[in-house]
């Protein structure tokens, strides 16, 4: 089981801040493919990966990153701090 978190407009499009997902996905990209297959709102949220960033266990990474051992994956748009 992995916690999947969504922030900003990703959260709004999916309509929830978090899912708990049972998955055998090997990489972030595999997890994204599983999520997109779920429902229209996931398909919409993940339609343009270039507009998204991902963190695995609270570390920024990319969509090729392996998920072995991961507890938490988060998807969000480019950050706008400061």
């Amino acid at each position, binding site marked *: 089981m992995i916690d999947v978190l969504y*922030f900003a407009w990703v*959260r709004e499009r999916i309509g929830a801040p978090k899912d708990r997902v049972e998955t055998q996905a090997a990489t972030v990209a595999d997890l994204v493919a599983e999520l997109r297959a779920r429902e229209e709102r996931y398909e919409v949220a993940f339609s343009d990966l270039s507009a998204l960033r991902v963190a695995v266990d*609270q570390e*920024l990474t990319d969509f090729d990153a392996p998920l072995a051992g991961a507890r938490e994956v*988060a998807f969000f*748009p*480019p*950050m*706008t701090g*400061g």
Partner: protein
Amino acid sequence: MSVRVQAESFDLGAEASRFASGRTDAGAIVTFSGVVRADGGLIEMEIEHYPGMTESAIGAIREEAVARWSLADALVIHRHGRMEPGELIMMVATAARHRGDAFAAAEFLMDYLKSRAPFWKKERRGDGDGWVAAKVEDEAALQRW
């Protein structure tokens, strides 16, 4: 506490005074403060963040700045939640022997906070809400470090 992520407002003067006081090792102290601008009829800004990752990401950025410029100290305060035009969003402070290091480290911290700390700004205006888009030039600014 050298990194603070909080919903509450903070007092720039009090923070700057505390940061600067009693230093005899660092001749140069730089602060940067970000203020909510009243551009284009902005009513309110709301900042979302990623609890847990926010603190660790800022902590790592701060450590890198301290190591890279041999800083005597560095402080980062960043708010989340709602704030109105004129309110302070965040501040950084750096202390170094010489001004070049204090300025460079403060600019480095700002460039990284802009694009690498998990905050997202939403603007509330008379004609609706909207997420602030990341700026190409903010991402580009990271290349200089």
